[in-house]
C-alpha cells in the first residue's frame, strides 16, 4: 500500500513538472513584453525597462528562468499580479473559500439527488418511473449550466422575487444571507452533476444486481432493502466515486461560468477576469492550482477504492 502511494506520488510529481513546463512555455511564447505590460501607460525610458527586466530575471536564458520560477513555485511564490501588484498566492487563497463552499454544497446536492434517484430507477427498472428518471438524467447531462443558471434567475428572482439574483456575503458575516445567495449556484451545479451521477449509478446498480451474490443473499432471506443498501449499492459506489472525485476536482478548481453569472468571488471568476485583463501571473497561478488539486483528488479517490471495496489491491 505504502509502495503504491509512493509510486503514485512520484508519478504525480512528474506530471506536475510537465504541467508546470507547459504553463511556463505557454506564458513565455505570448506576444508582448511582460515588463511593458507592467508599466502600462507610463512613459518609461528604455534603460529603466532593461533594468526592470534584469531585476525580474527576464534577461536570463529560458531554462534558467524556468528553474528559478519552479523554485519559487515550490516555495509557494507564484509571482505578483500585474494589475493589482499583490502576491498571486494571496489573491488565489482569498478566492478559495468561496469556491470551496460552493463545491461542497453542490456535491452534497448532487449526491443527495443521484443516489435515491438511481435506486428508484433500478427498483422500477423498465417501467415509466425508470424512463422518467433516465430521461431526466439525460436532460441534466445535456443542459448547459449557464442556461439553467439564467433560467433559475429568471424564475426565482425576476418572476417570483424569492431570491436575490447575484452577489456574495461571507458566511462569517451573515450565514442566512450567505445561504440565500448560494441556493441558485448550488442548484445549478448540483443538478448538472446529479444528471451524470444518476446515469452512471443506475448503470452500475443494474450490473451489480445481476451478479450471483444478490441471488445468494435473496436465498438466505435478506430483505430487498438490505440487499440494495449493504451489498449492491456498496459495490456500485466504486466507479461512482471516480466520477464524483472528477466532479469535485472540476468544482474545486473553479466553477468558472456559474461563479461569473452569480458574481461569486471564487477561483473560476478570478481566472476569467484575469484572462480578460491579460494578467498572466494570476492565470498561471489558477491553472497550476487547478492541476494540483485535480491530481490530488484523483489520487485520493484511488485510495478510497480500498476502503469501499476491500478486494481492490494496490500493486
Amino acid at each position, binding site marked *: 500500500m505504502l509502495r503504491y502511494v509512493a509510486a503514485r506520488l512520484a508519478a504525480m510529481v512528474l506530471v506536475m513538472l510537465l504541467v508546470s513546463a507547459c504553463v511556463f512555455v505557454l506564458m513565455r511564447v505570448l506576444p508582448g513584453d511582460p515588463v511593458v505590460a507592467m508599466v502600462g501607460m507610463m512613459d518609461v525610458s528604455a534603460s529603466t525597462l532593461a533594468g526592470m527586466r534584469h531585476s525580474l530575471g527576464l534577461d536570463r536564458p529560458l531554462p534558467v528562468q524556468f528553474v528559478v520560477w519552479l523554485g519559487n513555485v515550490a516555495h509557494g511564490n507564484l509571482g505578483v499580479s500585474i494589475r493589482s501588484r499583490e502576491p498571486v498566492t494571496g489573491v488565489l487563497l482569498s478566492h478559495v473559500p468561496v469556491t470551496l463552499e460552493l463545491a461542497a454544497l453542490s456535491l452534497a446536492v448532487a449526491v443527495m439527488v443521484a443516489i435515491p434517484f438511481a435506486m428508484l430507477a433500478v427498483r422500477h427498472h423498465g417501467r415509466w418511473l425508470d424512463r422518467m428518471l433516465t430521461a431526466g438524467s*439525460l436532460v441534466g447531462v445535456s443542459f448547459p449550466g449557464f442556461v439553467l443558471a439564467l433560467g433559475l434567475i429568471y424564475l426565482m428572482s425576476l418572476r417570483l422575487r424569492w431570491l436575490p439574483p447575484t452577489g456574495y456575503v461571507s458566511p462569517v458575516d451573515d450565514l442566512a444571507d450567505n445561504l440565500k445567495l448560494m441556493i441558485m449556484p448550488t442548484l445549478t451545479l448540483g443538478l448538472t452533476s446529479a444528471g451524470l451521477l444518476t446515469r452512471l449509478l443506475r448503470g452500475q446498480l443494474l450490473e451489480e444486481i445481476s451478479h450471483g451474490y444478490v441471488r445468494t443473499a435473496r436465498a438466505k432471506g435478506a430483505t430487498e432493502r438490505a440487499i440494495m443498501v449493504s451489498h449492491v449499492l456498496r459495490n456500485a459506489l466504486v466507479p461512482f466515486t471516480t466520477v464524483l472525485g472528477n466532479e469535485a476536482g472540476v468544482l474545486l478548481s473553479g466553477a468558472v461560468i456559474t461563479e461569473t453569472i452569480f458574481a461569486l468571488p471564487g477561483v473560476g471568476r478570478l481566472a476569467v477576469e484575469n484572462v480578460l485583463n491579460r494578467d498572466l501571473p494570476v492565470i498561471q497561478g489558477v491553472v497550476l492550482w487547478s492541476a494540483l488539486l485535480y491530481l490530488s483528488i484523483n489520487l485520493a479517490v484511488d485510495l478510497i477504492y480500498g476502503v469501499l471495496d476491500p478486494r481492490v489491491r494496490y500493486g
Partner: protein
Amino acid sequence: MASSTHEFATDKIGWPRGRWLRWRHRVPASFGVAAVLVLVAIGAAWLAPYNPYQEHVTLRDALQPPSLHHWLGTDQLGRDVFSRILFGGRVSLGLGIFAVSIAASLGSASGLFGGYRGGWWDHALMRVVDALQAFPTLILAIGITAVIGTGVVGVTVAIGVVTIPIFARLARARVLQVRTLDYVEAAHAVGASGVRTMARCILPNVAGPLIVQASVSLSFAILIEAGLSFLGLGVQPPTPSWGNMINEGKEFLEQAPWLVFAPGGMIFVTVMTFNFLGDAMRDRLDRAGPA
C-alpha cells in the same frame, strides 16, 4: 426487478426499453435529428428570413417578442433572433465539427502509433496526455484562449487541445487489445509494413469506439464553445454563436427572456442529440461484441 439477467447485462447506461422508442430505432432517429441540425446550419443563408446582421435601432424594432414576422422575436439591436440562431448554429456546429475532426484525427493517429509501436514514443505520448488531462477542461480552454487570443481560432484550438487526449488514450487502449490477435500476426507474416498493418488491419477494427467518442466529443465541444463565447472569450460579436447570443441576451433577461432561452434551447437540443447518438451507437457496438 422482473427483467432478466440478460437485459441487465446489456442495458447498462442506456435508455430503458419501451415500446415508444425501441433501441434499434435510436441510432437512425438520433442520426436523423443530427442530420437535420447539420443541414439547417449549412442552409442557414437560404432558410433565414432576415439578414442576421441587419440592425434596426428604433424603439419599434428592438426587443420585439416572438410574432408571425419574427418567430423568435428580435434582439436589442432589432436583429431577427431566428435568423441569428440559424447562422449561430452554423458557427457553433461548424466550429465543433471542425475542431473535433482535427482532434480525433491527430489523437487517434498518435494513439494508434503509440499503442502499435510502444517504446519511448508511447511513453512520451502518455505523459503528455496525462499532463493535458491534469487540467479541468474549461480552465485549460481558458488558459489556451489567454495565449492564442479570443475569437474563432482560439476557440477551435482550445477545443482541439482539450479533445485530443481522450482520442489518443482510447485509440491506444484499443490497439493494445487487438495488436496480438491472429489477423495482425498474419499481416506481419505475409510481410505487410507497419503502416499498412495499422491502416488496413488495426484501424478498421478500432474505429467503432472512436466514432462513438466523436459524437460524444462533439456535444462536449458545442458546450465548450458556448461556455467560452458566453464568457466573452470565444466567438466575438457581431458574428452570432449560440454562446455569445446568450451572453448578449442576459442583460435583457427580464424584458426579453427569449434572447437567452431560444439559443439555450438550441444548445440543449443539439447536445442532447449528439449525446443520445453516441449512447445509441455505443449500445449497438456493445451488443455486436468486441472487434
